[in-house]
């Protein structure tokens, strides 16, 4: 087990390194003159040179990359100040430290992800299980129909509708915003309620469909049939035997969904004008801000690799037959 985790971690670190290398060289290879972008419209040659110097753009590309990578591990010094250990560089556009900016924005994205996950796991998987348990009943038909329609909605359509109903026309809620939970827990809750629910609604629909079909597939398995033939009650078999197996595909998708959401719930953040990681990525791309974009990409890739490992561990926990090797 421990060996497995160590081996996967090393593999993940190598992948992270490769991703940063690929991203870095692609950005540098692109014929964008970052210094002149950072300098603005009427830029004197002297000032341009100063900016190049400050950003380290005069150094060879490999040297720049090396500085960037060592900065992540050991920190780095800039003319404007020191940047401590996980140093992802300094934004070309705003001049802020990238790691600091990401940490400022992360609570918003984390709230969305965790809040949403609680809702869609409880409601979505729950509804899917009930629908599978009472297959063919009225409950099943309603759950299937509603989830089918809702999963065809998009956040950028459902979001404005919800805003129009609850904020613009009735004024029942304030415009969504992020308030730190340590400052004002109630404000945090009400401010993030609409975005989280809208995002969770669409995921709930997808998880209902998935949980239902995965459960039905499990119920057709031989070990379930044998258990039933031995005379065990339907309920017992359902909740003790079939349940475990049906979790495998759900855990797989959950890992992918959570990791991509933590790397920025882009659509939700834009729809509700929240300042999260996804919004940061868009800002970085629009301003052609290389360090910011690199930082956000690495941050997102980190979660993907982390959740890959966690998913594999979860498999072994759910199904003891799975060997981690």
């Amino acid at each position, binding site marked *: 087990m421990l060996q497995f985790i160590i081996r996967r971690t090393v593999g993940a670190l190598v*992948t992270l390194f*490769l*991703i940063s290398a690929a*991203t870095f060289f*692609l*950005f540098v290879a*692109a*014929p*964008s*003159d970052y210094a002149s*972008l950072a300098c603005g419209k009427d830029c004197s040659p002297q000032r341009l040179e100063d900016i190049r110097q400050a950003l380290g753009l005069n150094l060879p590309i490999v040297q720049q990359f090396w500085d960037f990578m060592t900065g992540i591990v050991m920190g780095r010094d800039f003319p404007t100040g020191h940047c401590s250990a996980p140093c992802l560089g300094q934004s070309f556009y705003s001049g802020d430290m990238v790691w600091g900016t990401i940490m400022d924005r992360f609570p918003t994205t984390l709230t969305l992800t965790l809040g949403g996950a609680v809702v869609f796991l409880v409601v979505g998987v729950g509804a899917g299980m009930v629908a599978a348990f009472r297959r063919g009943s009225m409950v099943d038909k309603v759950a299937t129909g509603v989830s*089918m*329609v809702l*999963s*065809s*909605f*998009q956040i*950028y*359509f459902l*979001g*404005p*509708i919800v*805003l*129009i109903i609850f904020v*613009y*026309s009735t004024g029942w809620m304030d415009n969504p915003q992020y308030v730190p939970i340590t400052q004002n827990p109630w404000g945090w809750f009400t401010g993030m309620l609409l975005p989280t629910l809208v995002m969770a609604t669409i995921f709930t629909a997808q998880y209902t469909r998935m949980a239902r*079909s995965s459960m*039905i*597939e499990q119920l*057709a398995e031989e070990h379930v049939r044998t258990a039933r033939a031995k005379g065990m009650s339907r309920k017992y078999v359902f909740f003790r035997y079939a349940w475990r197996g049906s979790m495998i595909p759900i855990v797989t998708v959950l890992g992918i969904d959570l*990791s*991509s959401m933590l*790397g*920025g719930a*882009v*659509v939700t953040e*834009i*729809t509700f004008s929240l300042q999260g990681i*996804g919004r940061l*990525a*868009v800002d*970085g*791309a*629009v301003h*052609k801000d290389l360090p910011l*974009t690199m930082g*956000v*990409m690495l941050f*997102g*890739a980190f*979660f*993907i*690799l982390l959740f*890959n490992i966690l998913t594999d561990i979860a498999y072994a926990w759910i199904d003891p037959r799975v060997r981690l090797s």
Partner: protein
Amino acid sequence: MTSPAKAEGSGPSVALEPELESKPTPAKEEKKLEGRSPGQLMWQRFKRDRTGVICAVVVIFYFVVALGAPLLTKLSGTDPYTLYGQDPTYQDTPVLDDFGLPLGYFGGLSGTHWFGVEPQYGRDIFAMLVYGMRTSLFMALGVTVLMMVTGIILGLIGGYFGGRTDYWIGRVTDFFLAFPQQLFFIAFMPVVTAFFVDPREETPTYFRALAMLIVLWVLGWMGMARLVRSTVLSLREREFVEAAKVSGASPWRIVRKEILPNVVTPILVQFTYTLPSTILTIAFLSFAGVGFVEPTPDWGRLFANGSKYAEQDPSFIFFPGVALVIFVLAFNLLGDSVRDAFDPKSGR
């Protein structure tokens, strides 16, 4: 469909397995006996699925609308670029009030503006929607075909030749899967455009389309490659491939004649799932502001504007949104039907 066909139709679901193993081509010559290719069987099962057929019709309708966008806008007499609210030619028929909001009921519905007009500029929503669908659908079709072809080729090579080749293709696939997709799309759109155009100049629309195509393609082929690889891996060990090998067929012939016909169906199923998700990804890029920009009509851009105007003109987002929901719903149901037709055992 006549009744005898129906009576026969209930049988094949059991006989599917042996049917898959035989090669589809020679089966046609025997007339009396059961002799239908997996494709024909699938088509027969699909025809009996009423939801599937209705959804197929809806999806085809959308493509026809997208193709016929210029004709449709000729009928309504509008186009997606004219600013009906600001252009002096249209002063006699004002569409916007003093605040730049549409005049009339539900976002300015009228005989000329079937779905209303956009606030501030007064562009026609119907024209923007049908032209936007045209952009999105055909772009997505192109991207999906590219992704599929790449995935199929890499999957075939990896699955059939195995060994070292397979290992490295697998590692490359894993590497690409580790990229955060959404962030990658957003981050690399400007980079890829920068390869073609000076960043200080205006990017032409077709360069934007090309950049989107490249970005989506690079991160989109992995699912297909994995699917084809695993299918080929199980096919490779089957007797009919062995037989072909023994009789001296070249690898290229075996892949083309023995293996490819048997992976067509899973590819088809995957295709019906991938196409709508590609359409949504393109819409997402435009929504995030890194895809198509003004004034190119695009489905995703309508949502960006729709949520911008949601407070003043809530009706703007209605028609593009409902159109998208119906389209995605039909496509999802179609995907399920195609899958069921392919594999009747997977009950819904």
